[in-house]
């Protein structure tokens, strides 16, 4: 008997619709844990959480260590220090996200299934955002809980109640912006290595340009030119700490919104089931 007579049968179950982006999220998120180097990166990105936890423990249990006592600036600083891991996760995962699908012509497989282009983008975006929130929002919120647990009271939390929304809003703005930018770049090429280099180059080039302009103008009013400075400026506003640049924060917000909008436009143009060369 030919083997095909043994296998195929019609499906009698029920198909569910409208959850395709969740399928992409689930597969993308758990699929990454098959990669040992990725697990190492994830663990490394939680080292600061452990260090801060120890700091909070010392501050809570040793009155002479008041210098280690947490403030709102501590949490702002936590995000600054996490930036390197945000960058590494973004480049490692974001660069391959769509570029690899384009290399393998996977878009026509995805888009021949009952999912829209928006669902595909949401699925890819949610995988990257989930990992980035796992190394920004989750440890920051846990740090607040750790502080309450070690201090044994809610005094710090009550005095700095705005930290919960501040951590949430800043995490979301940062994660959304970098995710959208890297996905847009990823959709432009079939070579993920090229995308990673391009993203890195854009960050360093914009930083270098800002450095030159700062030297020329003698002020930090042109900080908006650097990719990361706008996030830093917004972070300072959100965490209510002194602003580090002279640029009005509304300008920084406008640049961040513009970057997200341009990225969305690029994704809308590039995510197609068929590439048309007229």
């Amino acid at each position: 008997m030919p083997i095909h007579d043994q296998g195929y049968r019609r499906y009698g179950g029920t198909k569910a619709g409208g959850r395709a982006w969740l399928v992409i999220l689930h597969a993308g998120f758990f699929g990454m844990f098959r990669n040992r180097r990725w697990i190492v990166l994830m663990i490394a990105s939680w080292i600061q959480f452990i260090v801060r936890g120890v700091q909070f423990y010392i501050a809570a249990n040793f009155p002479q260590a008041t210098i280690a006592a947490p403030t709102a600036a501590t949490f702002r600083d936590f995000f600054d220090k996490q930036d390197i891991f945000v960058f590494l996760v973004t480049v490692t995962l974001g660069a391959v996200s769509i570029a690899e699908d384009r290399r393998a012509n996977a878009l026509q497989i995805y888009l021949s299934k009952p999912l829209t282009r928006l669902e595909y983008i949401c699925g890819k975006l949610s995988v990257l955002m989930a990992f980035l929130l796992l190394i920004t929002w989750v440890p920051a919120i846990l740090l607040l809980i750790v502080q309450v647990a070690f201090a044994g009271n809610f005094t710090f939390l009550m005095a700095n109640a705005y930290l919960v929304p501040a951590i949430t809003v800043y995490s979301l703005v940062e994660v959304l912006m970098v995710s959208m930018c890297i996905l847009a770049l990823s959709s432009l090429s079939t070579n993920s290595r090229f995308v990673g280099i391009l993203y890195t180059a854009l960050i360093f080039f914009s930083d270098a340009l800002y450095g030159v302009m700062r030297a020329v103008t003698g002020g930090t009013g042109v900080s908006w030119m650097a990719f990361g400075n706008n996030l830093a400026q917004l972070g300072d506003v959100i965490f209510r700490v002194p602003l580090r640049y002279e640029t009005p924060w509304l300008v920084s917000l406008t640049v961040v919104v513009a970057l997200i909008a341009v990225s969305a436009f690029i994704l809308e143009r590039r995510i197609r089931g068929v590439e048309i060369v007229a």
Partner: protein
Amino acid sequence: MDDTDPVVSLDNVIVEFGRNRALNGVTASFGRGAVGLLGPNGAGKSTMIKSLLGFIVPRQGQMRVLGLDVATSPVEIRARIGYMPETDAHIPGLTAVQFVAYCGELAGLPRADATQRAHEVLYYVGLGEARYRNVETYSTGMKQRIKLAQALVHDPDLLFLDEPTNGMDPKGRDEMLELVRDLSRNKGVNLILSSHLLPDVEYTCDQVVVMDKGRIAAAGPIEALKQPRGRVYELRVKTHGDLETFFEHLTAAGLECHATDDDVVRVFVPGDGGAQELFALAAAEGVQVRHLRPSVPTLEDVFAHAVGED
């Protein structure tokens, strides 16, 4: 949707890429069963399939698949169809069973059902033993099979197969055609097979739509299309004069002559005249008929006639 309704219909569909009109006012319908979409490269076959999938938005016209309007219900349509792309396509970094199960989940199957069906379908397409291998390590023939598997995993009502035997060795090609034939004849799956390989279409399909330069050149059941409005003969003659002159006389008498690879000429005699008309013309020209045999029309004849390769 009634059983007699076409599974796919197009009404005056125009698709343009810049100044190039890929589909030029196409009006066609595809019935149930296996339908071949034939045409030379650039005829518009793949464009038609991609338009039906909603990948390309036509400038004009209406398309319906399984009774649903492509413009308004593309997601509902894609839940009920399977698409095997022409080019190499897979989701990177996955084994075959992960890839096919993932496609099943994307199509709406629960995870457990998708995994179970992935195993079944992979056995069905002949990749059972290789199902735990990364798809990127597959040969061209295996990649063709995995593309069929991912198109089948969610049990579609209609399959679009775009050049399914591309790059396959003869044995693999035969097996693929057997699978396609089995799906349409025994498993009740409607399919549209796009190909420029006439034997593939003739073996697997009952009906054919021939495309040329973005238009429908011919359409209908293959057997009906092969019935000529006259008769075709294989003819070998001997003459002391110029053979070309004799052929010119035949052509002038309304007969069509096509030289073949051998020294045989295929002559199409329209109407009911048949062999007697040929003999009469040969006698009149003083030509000896050494060989005359009725020829069975092939799909190749239909195709050549439709796309103007007479």
